[in-house]
């Protein structure tokens, strides 16, 4: 069944989009990520313009992270203080990112920068996650505890000043890495048009040693707030949010996220991280492939302005 999208200016198959929403929602519920790094390329693939894709995906992510956040909230698995501090830094990062975005766009090299940052980030983060989780799995096989978490095993990050205690996560860390992580997520998100959950989750685990119990819920709150405000900002400035597309995506997304969250809670942490690492790495390889292999058509058309 075809439905015409009023902002994207094209008809799409409603079941195809619903299915995409379901699949990405399942993954996002399972790993506690927004899934923008999967959904945006999928929409571009079916012919939606990149600008409309990025703007509409934001509201889809807001919906699926809200349903996830509610269930984590009920299980007291959200560290609100940590989320708010990350958010404050994230806003600064977003502003810097938007400024750079506008500058690169004027130089007509935005595609390249987006492509390269996808490749670098996804492959590096994916590879690191695979490496770490495989080691954890192997340790678990030998009967050792899966994650080494001795009281004395602090990294240099824990030696930094301005220490803050986050009660829900049971961590006592410096505010500096928290602000740095928040800023990075906001900056990267603005440039790549993603929520950054797939970066945030591993960063919180590896740098701040946030326990797996609160990391996903906290990441979801952050994703929810950034994506909800991104929806409003995109709509107010670019007028590119397609509400019809967003609605179909979010209906699929929230249903998928519910099932995904259940699967995720049944799985062991290290296996979950291994799967996410493989997924992130695979998407990164796909972007690399696109940059390296000669495209079918060397030419492309970009819309500049109407009459």
């Amino acid at each position, binding site marked *: 069944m075809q439905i015409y999208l009023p902002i994207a200016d*094209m008809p799409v198959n409603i079941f195809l989009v619903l299915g995409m929403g379901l699949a990405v929602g399942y993954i996002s519920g399972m790993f506690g990520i927004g899934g923008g790094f999967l959904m945006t390329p999928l929409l571009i693939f079916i012919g939606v313009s990149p600008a409309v894709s990025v703007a509409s995906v934001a509201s889809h992510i807001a919906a699926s992270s*809200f349903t996830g956040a509610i269930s984590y909230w009920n299980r007291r698995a959200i560290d609100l203080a940590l989320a708010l501090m990350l958010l404050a830094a994230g806003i600064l990062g977003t502003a810097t990112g938007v400024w750079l975005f506008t500058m690169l766009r004027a130089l007509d090299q935005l595609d390249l920068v987006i492509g390269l940052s996808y490749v670098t980030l996804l492959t590096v983060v994916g590879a690191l996650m695979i490496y770490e989780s495989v080691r954890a799995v192997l340790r678990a096989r030998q009967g050792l505890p899966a994650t080494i978490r001795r009281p004395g095993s602090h990294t240099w990050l824990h030696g930094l000043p301005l220490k803050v205690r986050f009660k829900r996560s049971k961590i006592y860390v410096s505010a500096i890495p928290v602000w740095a992580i928040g800023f990075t997520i906001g900056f990267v998100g603005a440039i790549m048009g993603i929520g950054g959950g797939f970066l945030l989750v591993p960063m919180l685990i590896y740098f701040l040693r946030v326990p797996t119990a609160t990391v996903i819920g906290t990441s979801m709150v952050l994703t929810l707030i950034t994506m909800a405000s991104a929806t409003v900002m995109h709509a107010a400035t670019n007028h590119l949010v397609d*509400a019809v597309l967003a609605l179909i995506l979010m209906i699929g997304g929230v249903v998928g996220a519910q099932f995904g969250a259940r699967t995720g809670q049944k799985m062991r942490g290290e296996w979950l991280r291994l799967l996410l690492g493989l997924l992130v790495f695979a998407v990164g390889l796909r972007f690399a492939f696109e940059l390296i292999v000669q495209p079918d058509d060397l030419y*492309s058309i970009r819309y500049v302005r109407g009459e």
Partner: protein
Amino acid sequence: MMRRIACMLLLVLIGCGARPAAAERLVVSLSKQQVAISSNFVGDELVLFGTIQPDGDKAALRTAYDLVVTVTGPRQTLRTRRKQRVLGIWVNVDSREFVRVPSYLGILSNRPVAEIASPDVLRRLQIGLGNFLLPQRIGTDIADTVNDDPFRQAFVHLQSQHGLYRESGSAVTFLTPAVFRAAIPLPADVPTGNYAIDVKLFAAGKLMARNNATLNVTKAGFEQYVANAAREHGLIYGFATMLMALLTGWVASVVFKRD
């Protein structure tokens, strides 16, 4: 004053002289003047009907006519970019801006345009994708390039692939020697706006008569409502979309609540 009158007289004389000796008249009509894009729109096909009528003496009608219909959509400025390999990756290195070119261009005729008139006439009347004026910004100048310019060719090729540019030598059919119909296909992602339809009648390679029609493509109903809301009340629209997202998320968590 005298000079102005002389000028006008001269213009009248030239005008009379340029009028074809055997005068035909074209009468055209579109199957619909308004195409409404609603939520089930997947493209459309319009039909243009027309007859060739004698302008005075009926015996003046010939037997063999050719007809060219040129449909031009609202103008847009588009940039065509070319990728090249730099340090192992494919990068956009070069680009050209096509200034105020038609977003839709259909050149429909009863046989291939090259058979209808001489290349000179075709170029002067901009008949055929190769002869249609597609101005590019080159430095500070805006000019059309030669037909085999790689950017121009790539641009026409890409637009044709999307069904937005087309040249068809079989889209016009003569039902009788003096009655014709032309099928105008509109793709699903047809740009909205005003379309100009220019109909030219040829006989033995000469332009005999010309007429035009207009077409309007607009969004209708719900599609129009959403598009207007997004454009004119962006902030409210954004908040509404955000609330819709939160509501959807909340409903899902209520529906799937596990007890």
